[in-house]
């Protein structure tokens, strides 16, 4: 190609005459490869002339093409000249210019040229033409002739061209000749013939069926190259039907053992690794053979182990073998010893500083977590790091991995992460892929867990997503997936599924059941739906959705029969069905929209006591009311199962469900709520809410730390800066990032068991207190105790606060896992109290206790002589506080436990008094505080505003709620004042103003997302009730506050 002379190119600076491989690389060592520095001169030259070059290029190529065209048309052009023309034409085509005039000449060159011209001709043909090109028919005879040639080179060229692209219907013409070549004395010909047959097999499997026995011969060929080539075919065959080739397992294992053992000629070595391509091919075949077949797998265990062991050299090619080996080990019937080694291998990959290996490690993890999700646990930190990796590919792979370990507890965090990625990505294909996954996760987890409290437009949007897509393959797959997963859901227990989810299910089944072509029984979906109708818990609205779906399915006789049966029972509903389908649905039948033909039935049904028809609007209103009234079980919960949270008082085994009712949907992140008993819950606890609606939330510093100084505790373990203990953070670096660990715990929630890695400590804090000598009273001060006015939560806390005392005996170890007992040291006989740190370290945004260090108070003399309240710390003594409540006194008469709450301006302090009622000295005692469910979102705290400010704020808030509340009636107060006072007392709301029968009240949120956000209440006495109108900038706040108000008023 001398369009411009070679040296001219270099002088212009377009190209660097640098070799691809440096010296070090030629020594077969890629790892040390370093790019040579670019000379400055070339670079500047390049920049200057770049523009010129591209303009010039186009001009040159156009000119060149014109001249080529002229030349090929000329009868005087020799074959040798034609060869040069072809090369030029190929070059022009590659640059994107059409040179179709040369196609026919390329064929001619292949037909008529000498060996050397023929080769270029074949090359041009293979580059220019497609399998469907009619020109190719002209080539068949030439190929046939060359295949039979005595010149090896010609045979090779012909074999190369047929395995590159060959029209399907022309295969029979040359197949016998190619088959013949399988017995050719030259191994290069045999090899190419095998590969050509492999290609034929891929294009038209039927045509090569009769030569399977010859493939076996190729497999046993004395030349390893031919054998390797035949493995391509076998891989394909075994992939398609592993059962028919089980007998080959032994041979494959033998071959692999020989290869691994270095029995092949040195020619096959690649960077001193014996035939890596062959090894990988064999490993892949073994994976297919041993999949779900214990007997076959057992044959290969030894050789797999040997491959793992041998592939130790530090080179890319050995990593490739290792990766394939690990994949095979995890595909075949498991053997624990091998799995262990493979897992170790994956670990090395994941931890590797080389980015390619990290990527493959993640990929391997993705593959293996499908079998054992716990394998991801040791790599939590790495995975979190990869989630924020600068390389999108790594990020994507990490998401893929997370997708595989999604469960009910971490689904929200993972979906958040995926959406975050979606926002950044621009690639259509990955978007479609990811959206499908998000939808899948959402459908199956979120819907089924919290369906009823979702906004109605969420399911509607989801349905729209399903319905709107163009009829592409992806959409169909998504729909089919939805249908399949819903059918399997319905086949299970449906009683627990939320109504909204059932509605979504019915709609999807109605619309897309036809996609399940393989389903031979058309009535199955129908029957499932009918079963749904018959269930008592199915609501009116859902039934109408189900009926709507059934009408759509009435296409087969079975379905019609079923439908008729159903119809008779549910006629009175029929009318509402038509009115109630919210999305546009195409009906295949004509509908009398007035449904006049049903009038008779309707009146009959009404007479028989059926409910009268209500318009959708009416029903919607009813639904709203229903929702408002039934706040208790679901109203404030998140779309994630609360039922998974079991809160059991460890000692009394009492359920305290009220704690849960405080949670709200503010964050959309529910992982914090999920707690399990005992050590299985290691990873759940103290999960900090770092992912909010707007993405990552900075660690929120609680406003207004109480001024109580931190008591410096003697043990280094207790200081917050102390390095994490080895057992707790084995996989983290020297300075593990707290946030990462928190994220990890929220992502890996629900995985693993107690012996797995624990990143965050248990929430159920156990402290053991040693009391020496004379100290009878011990004051535990929890500070700063951010809590709202939710008394029940506190009461529950106090209820579950149990003192386990052994009289004056030894410390009772209640919780091995988290307890850290400090040996008490008695120095000089003076009273000395030590507490253990109880920081719920990862905090959890919801955790009320933040650094609830146990503050030892000075020992006090004779508690019975003084009222306990006199032991209040000075800084708290002036503040309003609740009555002292005695707790658990019956547990042990020698010890009394009481508590009171002190309201600070911005915090609620819980004081726990422990007093020794005996005269004997208490040497040691253990205090266990179970406060794992102290997660209260909302705290309503006085918001001091003037009436004028109130008015301004009122207008600016968008979320409001109206509700009637019960009025509190007392003898000496107006009902309004009494009610407001009750609310003030219970919830610490700020009464801004009371004018006549109206009162305005304000409060703000103290904790959680939306901290400091106000909520305004407007109350008016209306007949016997109090009409309350709540407004807030936070959507969930009015709802929640209303709930608290209701609760507070019911209590009084």
């Amino acid at each position: 190609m001398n369009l411009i002379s070679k040296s001219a190119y270099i002088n212009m600076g377009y190209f660097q005459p640098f070799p691809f491989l440096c010296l070090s690389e030629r020594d077969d060592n890629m790892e040390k490869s370093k790019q040579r520095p670019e000379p400055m001169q070339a670079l500047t030259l390049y920049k200057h002339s770049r523009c010129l070059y591209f303009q010039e290029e186009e001009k040159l190529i156009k000119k060149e093409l014109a001249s080529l065209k002229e030349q090929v048309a000329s009868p005087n052009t020799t074959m040798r000249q034609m060869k040069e023309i072809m090369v030029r034409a190929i070059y022009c085509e590659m640059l994107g210019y059409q040179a179709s005039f040369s196609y026919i000449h390329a064929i001619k060159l292949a037909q008529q040229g000498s060996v050397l011209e023929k080769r270029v001709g074949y090359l041009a043909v293979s580059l220019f033409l497609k399998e469907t090109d009619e020109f190719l028919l002209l080539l068949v005879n030439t190929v046939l002739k060359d295949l039979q040639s005595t010149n090896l080179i010609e045979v090779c060229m012909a074999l190369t061209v047929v395995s590159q692209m060959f029209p399907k219907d022309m295969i029979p013409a040359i197949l016998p000749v190619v088959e013949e070549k399988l017995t050719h004395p030259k191994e290069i010909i045999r090899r190419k013939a095998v590969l050509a047959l492999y290609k034929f097999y891929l294009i038209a499997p039927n045509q090569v069926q009769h030569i399977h026995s010859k493939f076996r011969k190729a497999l046993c060929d004395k030349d390893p190259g031919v054998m390797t080539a035949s493995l391509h075919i076998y891989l394909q065959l075994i992939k398609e039907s592993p059962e028919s080739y089980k007998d080959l397992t032994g041979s494959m294992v033998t071959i692999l053992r020989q290869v691994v053992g270095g029995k092949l000629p040195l020619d096959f070595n690649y960077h001193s690794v014996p035939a890596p391509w062959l090894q990988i091919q064999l490993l892949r075949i073994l994976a297919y053979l041993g999949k779900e077949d214990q007997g076959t797998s057992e044959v290969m265990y030894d050789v797999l182990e040997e491959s793992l062991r041998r592939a130790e050299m530090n080179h890319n090619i050995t990593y490739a073998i290792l990766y394939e080996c690990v994949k095979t080990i995890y595909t075949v019937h498991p053997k624990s010893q091998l799995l262990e080694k493979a897992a170790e291998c994956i670990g090395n990959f994941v931890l590797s500083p080389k980015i390619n290996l990290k990527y493959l490690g993640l990929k391997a993890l993705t593959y293996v977590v499908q079998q054992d999700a716990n394998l991801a646990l040791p790599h939590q930190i790495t995975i979190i790091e990869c989630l924020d990796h600068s390389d999108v590919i790594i990020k994507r792979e990490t998401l893929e991995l997370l997708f595989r370990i999604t469960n009910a507890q971490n689904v929200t965090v993972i979906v958040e992460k995926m959406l975050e990625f979606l926002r950044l990505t621009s690639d259509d294909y990955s978007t479609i892929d990811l959206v499908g996954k998000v939808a899948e996760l959402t459908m199956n987890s979120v819907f089924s867990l919290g369906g009823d409290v979702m906004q109605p437009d969420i399911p509607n949007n989801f349905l729209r997503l399903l319905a709107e897509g163009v009829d592409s393959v992806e959409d169909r797959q998504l729909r089919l997936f939805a249908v399949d997963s819903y059918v399997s859901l319905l086949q299970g227990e449906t009683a627990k599924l939320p109504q909204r989810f059932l509605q979504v299910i019915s709609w999807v089944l109605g619309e897309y059941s036809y996609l399940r072509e393989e389903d031979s029984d058309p009535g199955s979906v129908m029957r499932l739906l009918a079963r749904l109708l018959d269930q008592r818990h199915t609501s009116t609205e859902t039934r109408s959705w189900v009926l709507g779906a059934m009408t759509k399915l009435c296409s087969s006789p079975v379905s019609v029969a079923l439908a008729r049966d159903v119809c008779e029972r549910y006629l009175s509903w029929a009318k509402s069905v038509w009115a109630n389908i919210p999305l546009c649905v195409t009906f295949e039948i004509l509908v009398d929209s007035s449904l006049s033909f049903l009038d008779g039935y309707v009146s009959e049904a009404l007479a028989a006591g059926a409910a009268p028809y209500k318009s959708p609007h009416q029903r919607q209103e009813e639904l709203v009311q229903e929702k408002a009234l039934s706040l208790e079980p679901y109203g404030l919960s998140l779309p994630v199962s609360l039922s998974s949270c079991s809160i059991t008082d460890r000692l009394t085994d009492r359920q305290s469900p009220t704690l849960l009712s405080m949670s709200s949907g503010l964050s959309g992140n529910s992982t914090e709520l999920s707690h399990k008993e005992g050590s299985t819950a290691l990873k759940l606890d103290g999960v900090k809410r770092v992912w909010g609606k707007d993405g990552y939330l900075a660690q929120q510093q609680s406003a207004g730390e109480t001024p109580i100084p931190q008591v410096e505790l003697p043990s280094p373990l207790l200081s917050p800066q102390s390095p994490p203990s080895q057992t707790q953070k084995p996989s983290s670096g020297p300075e593990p990032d707290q946030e990462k660990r928190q994220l990890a715990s929220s992502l890996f929630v629900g995985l693993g068991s107690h012996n797995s890695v624990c990143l965050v400590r248990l929430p159920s804090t156990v402290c053991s207190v040693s009391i020496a000598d004379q100290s009878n009273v011990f004051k535990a001060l929890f500070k700063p105790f951010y809590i709202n006015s939710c008394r029940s939560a506190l009461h529950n806390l106090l209820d579950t606060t149990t003192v386990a005392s052994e009289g004056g005996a030894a410390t009772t170890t209640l919780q091995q896992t988290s307890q850290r007992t400090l040996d008490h040291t008695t120095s000089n006989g003076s009273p000395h109290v030590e507490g253990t740190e109880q920081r719920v370290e990862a905090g959890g945004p919801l955790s009320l206790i933040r650094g609830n260090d146990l503050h030892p108070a000075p020992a006090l003399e004779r508690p019975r002589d003084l009222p306990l309240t006199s032991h209040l710390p000075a800084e708290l003594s002036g503040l309003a506080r609740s009555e002292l409540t005695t707790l658990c006194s019956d547990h042990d008469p020698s010890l009394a436990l009481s508590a009171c709450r002190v309201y600070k301006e911005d915090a609620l302090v819980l004081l726990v008094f422990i007093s020794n009622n005996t005269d004997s000295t208490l040497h040691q005692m253990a205090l266990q505080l179970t406060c794992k469910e102290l997660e209260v979102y909302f705290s309503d705290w006085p918001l001091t505003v003037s009436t004028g400010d109130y008015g301004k704020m009122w207008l600016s808030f968008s979320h409001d709620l109206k509700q009637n509340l019960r009025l509190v009636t007392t003898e000496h107060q107006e009902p309004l004042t009494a009610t407001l006072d009750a609310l003030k007392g219970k919830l610490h709301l700020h009464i801004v103003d009371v004018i006549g029968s109206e009162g305005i009240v304000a409060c703000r949120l103290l904790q959680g997302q939306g901290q400091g956000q106000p909520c305004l209440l407007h109350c008016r006495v209306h007949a016997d009730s109090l009409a309350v109108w709540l407004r807030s900038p936070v959507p969930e706040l009015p709802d929640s506050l209303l709930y608290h108000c209701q609760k507070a008023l019911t209590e009084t």
Partner: protein
Amino acid sequence: MMHFLLLFSRQGKLRLQKWFTPVPEREKKKIVRDMTTMVLGRKPRSCNFLHWKDLKIVYKKYASLYFCCGLDAEENELLALEVLHRYVELLDKYFGNVCELDIIFNFEKAYFILDEFLLGGEVQETSKQVLSRSIEASDMLQETMEEYMSKPAF
């Protein structure tokens, strides 16, 4: 199986293309465009693997030239990197200190070498010695001394 192999320069100029599966012309153009933008847009020290539709893309930069191939989903990425490397080694052995210009001016040779190395998207021969022997054998037949001398040289 490998679906395609592309060699392109830092400016996105195609230097060599090989398609192992039938791809319509328009699709080819799109793939080439997508590959160059994707690969050239990668930051240094990123991993050498990408996704494109359901294909795995493995690429590596050698001096000024990018070697990029598209693979089936089940293929081993690391192995593909070694395929690229072996190809570069073969070119290097043939041309001696191979650089982009060698491929521009002797691209048909680069194709012939590739045809000996890969057949139908699968590696057919991995031995450097065997490969160069067979390449040389066919070269001897082809190239007359006269042609050899007329080749442009630096």
